[in-house]
């Protein structure tokens, strides 16, 4: 099918503000927005956008599709195409725009450091962990640091959701010396964290779920 893409363009050397450029691309319905972007790129080799794994595990191709932050490689064209409407593709909001669909990721990666995002091994850890506890760590560990949560959250400038996910995962890790203390160290009100955890699965392209029992442990 032929589809019209409205792709946001911005060249820092020439433009003062982003503008849209229309592309007509031929794609199969089961192809993704990333496939469509690659078609557009073959028409205009100057178009800039990040991509790498094309299977939703690296997070490179996070953009705004029809107004909503998402991974281009995870969004099927048949879902993106509304009746007769072009598909609009823009850079992630809340990030500094550098060129076309490419945004500045440095502050995002920098923001992780605030939560001390590494395990501090308990001296008395004996090397075993129950399968249930391990499973509860697995799912939050699937965060791919794509930045979609940061772009999708109105409070992201103060909260930095990707860092919170890391902190909440480490907080429940029985190997970690800080453990549940990490919740208090975040200095985020527990009601805010509870709301964050509740909304996360809908905003996160990986649908990350964190049960909120850890929050109870953090405040007691």
């Amino acid at each position: 099918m032929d589809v019209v893409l409205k792709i946001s363009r911005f060249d820092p050397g020439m433009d003062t503000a982003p503008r849209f450029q229309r592309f007509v691309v031929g794609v199969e319905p089961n192809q993704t927005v990333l496939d469509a972007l690659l078609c557009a790129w073959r028409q205009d080799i100057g178009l800039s956008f990040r991509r790498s794994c094309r299977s939703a595990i690296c997070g490179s191709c996070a953009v705004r599709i029809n107004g909503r932050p998402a991974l281009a490689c995870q969004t099927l064209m048949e879902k993106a195409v509304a009746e007769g409407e072009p598909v609009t593709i823009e850079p992630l909001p809340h990030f500094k725009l550098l060129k076309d669909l490419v945004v500045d990721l440095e502050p995002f990666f920098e923001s992780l450091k605030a939560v001390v995002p590494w395990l501090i091994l308990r001296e008395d850890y004996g090397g075993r962990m129950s399968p249930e506890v391990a499973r509860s760590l697995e799912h939050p560990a699937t965060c791919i640091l794509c930045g979609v949560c940061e772009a999708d959250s109105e409070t992201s400038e103060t909260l930095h959701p990707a860092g919170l996910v890391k902190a909440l995962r480490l907080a429940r890790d029985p190997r970690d010396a800080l453990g549940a203390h990490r919740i208090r160290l975040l200095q985020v009100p527990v009601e805010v964290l509870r709301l964050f955890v509740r909304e996360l699965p809908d905003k996160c392209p990986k649908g990350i779920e964190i049960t909120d029992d850890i929050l109870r442990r953090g405040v007691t």
Partner: protein
Amino acid sequence: MIMHEVLIVGGGLAGLMAAMNVSGKADAAVLSKVYPTRSHSGAAQGGFNAVMGEDDSIEAHVFDTVKGSDYLGDQEAIEVLCSDGPRVILDLERMGVPWTRAEDGRIAQRSLGGAGFPRACFAADFSGHVVLHTLYEQALKRGVKTYPEWHLLEILVDKGRVFGAVIYDLARARLEVIRAKRIVLATGGYGRAFLKTTNGHANTGDGMAIAYRAGAVLSDMEFVQFHPTTLYGTNILISEAARGEGGYLRNALGERFMAEYAPGKMELAPRDVVARAIFKEIKEGRGFEGHYVHLDLTHLGERLVAERLPQVRDLAIRYSGVDPARVPMPIEPAQHYSMGGVRTDVWGMTGLEGLMAAGEVANVSVHGANRLGGNSLLETVVFGARAGRKAAELAPGEPWPDVSSNTVKDALDRWNRLCLAPSAHSRSDDDQFAVRREMATIMTNQVGVFRTGVELEDAVARLEGLRKRYRDLPVPVGPQPFNYGLMDYIEVGHLLDLSEIIARGALARRESRGAHYRLDFPQRDDRNWLHHTFAHTTDRGPEFSAGPVSITRFQPQERGY
């Protein structure tokens, strides 16, 4: 000019593991053309082989690997891989890797192809991802300097010793020279040379091609692994863990056809055996719609699929529209891994002084003619760590190599003309996308699972033609930030160099061994071909020579499953 005692190129598992082991002992930096957490290591699903249980043994792991390699793996290197494995897995555990656990709380293990024991440590089917992110956390902790989205263009060599590198900074559209005492390449594979591949867009063989141009030796490049199970059409990887957890392969007649090809191991035969079996079924008319077979997990139950294979399930639902807990997945083989690479010893040292390599870019060689599932992730962390340790031991005591100002000036002039000046070439009708597509089509159709002399000869001739066309292509001009067109142009050049070496090596090797299968020479021929292939660059193109295989404990025998 930037200076680092050890410059690590590549921020995947091997690169970050190397960085961790240098950190605190010498000044190190990691350069990557993507952000480190976006490295392709993160896409690995299945697991890390390591002997953890009392019933298993290092010797058994060594034997499985030697046999899996079709006796082309260096046994000295394989001993190192298997012996270092358990220690490294426990190190990763103490860094915070959320391994899946057995009922008794120990790290759980699953079966992958070609192994005589459930030997792969894993975290559901996100094994590569969670270890990559854990190592990234450790890199943050240790304050490892990273240069994301900096592309290696050239390794600078003077009087046979590496002294630095030319870099293109993608965001700022400028060139930079980094001086280094040692460079550790950890840039991964070249899957994008093939049309059908599980590899991401970044896997363009840059490190291999750049090292080769600088004078390092590539070895065993004709051995290319084709993963048996990728989603039909998109070639998105469906982990071997799906078979490890009990999945069946079925043809259009509903038969579990592996009974014909590997009755002892069935679906858990090594990848080369399974990939050939699937192709043969399709070729002989027993594929669905003539193109694919089924990977059937429906008998495993929803709970197991959800717990052990959540990513496989998501990928299949999203990209093939089938829920594998209920409906079999359509699958076909596709290029997956490069057994060949920059020749190194067990410490990551290449023949070029100052240059080291680890991971898929390297050829130690622990995989020989065919790699077993779970051994490449282990290789990245074991040999990444060893390369880092060696670099940390050597670099502080080494004098800074002399900078050859002529070499630097020549290189900068050349790259300036290409990257930053208007194209000197006249506009042609040809474009780099067309050249790349033709190359990848040739590689998949003629240098794939089944090979013949006639097709390989034709492939070599056509790849040479593509190289001529490449030289006349218009270069996407700069300067502009995030000039992906220019990077793609440079990457196509790397892929063309490597494709030619792969095809020539495959044409020369007149036998079948592991993943290299010649229909016109279907037997393994130890008398003439039990040796490595070394490729050297010359003014006339690649030249090949033979190198000995290290055989210590296990004499070659017929390989049956």
